[in-house]
């Protein structure tokens, strides 16, 4: 147990009915690339301290990014005076019986830490692989981290685990066309870093032919980056608190109801040691486990902590978040489509290689749109014939998921600016997707 956590526990135990201390220590180094050069190196040495304090069913969560024990304790003790003046929390549940401490082994790769002071070799591999494709310039980011998570609770739970994290993404430009790729893992794989640059360069140089298309319905293949982004939003909506707040498509599509094609399986996978969201225990000390959110198109799991589970008559799923249950890692089950067959399966339509700015008009119905940001390829008779500029997928989640006609076999571990929950994702192919773009 960290000394700070020990001091906080010792001081607050007895004053509150329950005390939980979550300490996250993070050492990170990031190099950001701009026009094929570093724009900045950034380094962080941070200790984040989170407290869950309860008394007489009143619940407080405190977040500190300071190592000053006096201010932490002073802030914590100041809440005691509120007990008689604030109502009981409607989402309170006593801390559950603690799970066993089973930290995930093999989530730490010392090679990642060894490159923090000098990542030039990794950066050069990523940049050179892109430039070798004939691009004009490369932007991107390489982030290396070591993270130690410790949880101590007054219910007797005490556990700590350590993981490393590499996140690499590159955007390569050839004239007005760009390609993008991303990789995230707890392990350092030089080939994967190189592949980020190579694939970004590949998409930037795949075609120079601009083709105008009209808005309408198209068969669409989306890359693992797009899959990661869209399924991040979907998985956030699987949090029980999002449902309680009304901001979830799973209110209309609860467990055991079909939301999509049989080809779709979406798994929350905290116990995968290679995905950077890996967690052996949740914030309530429950041992995590892998679970399908959607299995063969049918909704299977809503993500709970003890409080949301108590409110909705369910069991915790090991996804606490003291307030907000959260997915840890996502995995889309593999399909049987080979990558070289994707254009043939699309036949006439689009391959969207990257997106951003996904926003929902209505979470309850799942209406959303998202914009392509790197090359969007036009496919005719199973062949790539050009690119179409920036277009928009505008549909609803149930409609999109029901139109899934193919899932690639190969999957990629994706994590970047637009994919914050690490996701193992394949290419996916949908039919008759609504595509829009301005006509003025």
């Amino acid at each position: 147990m960290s000394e700070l956590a020990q001091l906080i526990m010792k001081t607050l135990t007895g004053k509150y009915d329950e005390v939980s201390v979550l300490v996250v220590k993070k050492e990170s180094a990031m190099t950001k690339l701009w026009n094929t050069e570093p724009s900045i190196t950034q380094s962080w040495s941070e200790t984040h301290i989170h407290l869950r304090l309860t008394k007489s069913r009143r619940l407080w969560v405190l977040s500190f990014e300071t190592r000053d024990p006096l201010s932490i304790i002073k802030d914590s003790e100041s809440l005691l005076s509120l007990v008689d003046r604030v109502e009981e929390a409607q989402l309170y549940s006593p801390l559950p019986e603690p799970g066993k401490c089973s930290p995930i082994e093999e989530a730490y790769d010392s090679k990642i830490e060894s490159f923090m002071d000098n990542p030039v070799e990794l950066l050069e591999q990523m940049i050179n692989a892109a430039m070798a494709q004939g691009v004009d310039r490369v932007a991107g980011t390489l982030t290396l981290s070591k993270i130690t998570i410790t949880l101590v609770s007054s219910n007797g739970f005490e556990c700590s685990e350590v993981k490393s994290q590499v996140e690499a993404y590159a955007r390569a430009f050839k004239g007005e066309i760009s390609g993008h790729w991303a990789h995230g893992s707890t392990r350092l794989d030089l080939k994967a870093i190189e592949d980020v640059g190579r694939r970004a360069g590949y998409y930037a140089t795949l075609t120079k032919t601009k083709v105008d298309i009209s808005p309408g319905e198209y068969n669409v293949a989306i890359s693992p980056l797009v899959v990661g982004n869209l399924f991040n939003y979907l998985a956030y909506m699987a949090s029980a608190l999002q449902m309680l707040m009304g901001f979830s498509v799973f209110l209309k599509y609860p467990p055991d109801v079909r939301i999509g094609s049989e080809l779709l399986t979406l798994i929350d996978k905290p116990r995968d040691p290679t995905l950077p969201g890996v967690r052996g225990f949740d914030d309530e000390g429950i041992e995590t486990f892998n679970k399908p959110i959607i299995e063969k198109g049918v909704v299977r799991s809503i993500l709970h902590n003890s409080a949301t589970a108590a409110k909705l008559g369910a069991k915790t799923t090991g996804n606490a978040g003291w307030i907000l249950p959260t997915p840890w890692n996502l995995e889309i089950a593999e399909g049987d489509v080979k990558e070289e067959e994707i254009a043939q399966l699309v036949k006439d339509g689009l391959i969207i290689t990257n997106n951003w700015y996904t926003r929902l008009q209505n979470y309850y119905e799942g209406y959303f749109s998202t914009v392509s940001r790197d090359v969007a390829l036009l496919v005719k008779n199973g062949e790539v014939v050009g690119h179409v500029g920036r277009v928009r997928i505008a549909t609803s989640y149930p409609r999109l998921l029901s139109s899934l006609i193919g899932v690639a076999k190969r999957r990629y571990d994706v994590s970047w600016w637009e994919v914050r929950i690490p996701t193992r994702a394949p290419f996916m192919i949908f039919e008759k997707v609504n595509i829009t773009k301005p006509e003025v």
Partner: protein
Amino acid sequence: MSYSEDLLNRLIERGVALGADYVEARYQEDRGFTIALLNGRLTSVQLYRVRGIGVRVLVNGSLGFAASNSLEVEDLFKTVDNAFTRAKVASKLRKSPIEFSEEKLGRSKYRVVEKKPLVDFKVEDAVSFLTEVYKAVAGEIKDAKLASLVEVLKVHLQDKVVMTSDGGYVESYIPRLYVLASSTLLYQNRSLQRRREFGATGGVELLDEWKVASTVLDELKRLEKVLTKGVSPPSDKVDIVLGPEVVGLIVHESAGHPMEADRILGREAAQAGESYVKPEMIGVFRVGNQYATVIEDPTIPGSYGYYLYDDECVRARPRYLYREGLIYEPLHNRHTARIFGVKSNGAARAMNYASEPIIRMSNTYLEPGNMNFEELIEDIELGVYVKSYMEWNIDDARWNQRYVGLEAYLIRNGELAEPVLNPVLEFTTGWFYSNIVGKDKNLEFYPGTCGKGEPSQGVPVWFGGPNVRLSKLKVGVLR
């Protein structure tokens, strides 16, 4: 010399002694609380205190940033060393040096004055306030079902001390208050969701000024009519009128962002994207007509994006982003100002101690006109008025944009008529600014949290404008 001034001074001396050409040290503390109520009952109370020091150095033309939330001198010296050594290592990959513009830097202290200081605002009083808002609203929605009302109140107190090796020193205290009312209405097989935000700098007195309960209730009653009586938008091209909230978002997205000089140069290419604006277009390219004047002003008293000096100690001032249709003045920090051969206009902001200062908007708005609303729409035979939105997005060059209306009405024979459900507007930046045909004089601002950078930094901004009338446009529907 205060404790923090002495500490920052030692860090700067350390960086200079290592050989840095420029050192900047920033102490920042962000603290306060956030409470949330779901359907009138307390769901969470969260207190936060985010405090530490961020250091930025220039060495061999390479920029390094490092941050720590330990305030122990030895830990902070290591932070300076990390910024220096890692920037020096990365300099091997730089072909041209990063340099900063020469500036007359501020030496100043300023504080936002609150009538009722937020530091004295008690959690229980905040809970009572939101409870009363819920009571005022809940029983009044009768035709539709108010399935959920999530209320959030956030108190944010921000202290900063910034010191630079070339003479800048600025201390500031900015208190901010934020309220969110997020609702879901259901009616038969229809539903509608709305996020209504209030945000500004100041004290507890803002809660009275905002009239949260009546504003939320009045809007929900109007949205109830949209949900229960809304019709599909016309299928032909019609005149379009946009309310200040929608106009504000449009100018934020398609004037503010593309006029950030770091985007124009490609520094955010792999994250928030680039810009349709190229350096050679500044001062010569017309993106719109004479109505297209967009102003960016951090100095508006009480605004959510308020500051008087940026995080490089450069004095803030208003800037014209677009002026009568002309692409006029980008937002600069000292780095981009040097490249463009101009002075910085003070746009560098950092979210917290652990964030590098980058070019950010503050308060962005379309200059209002001089008509009243009735005059703006009086000669429209058939049109659509879009007052608020939920879904929106824009491409990463800031050209192709979409807004889906929430509260919207038909305009028939110069008057607002029946409500319209989910009208979809898609247009380019060039079309919007070239097709403004009228503006009224009702300037309104709305708060937002703007995201940019890696790691992503969310900073408070205002965006606003008047009611704006556009040329005819085909309105889409949700599919």
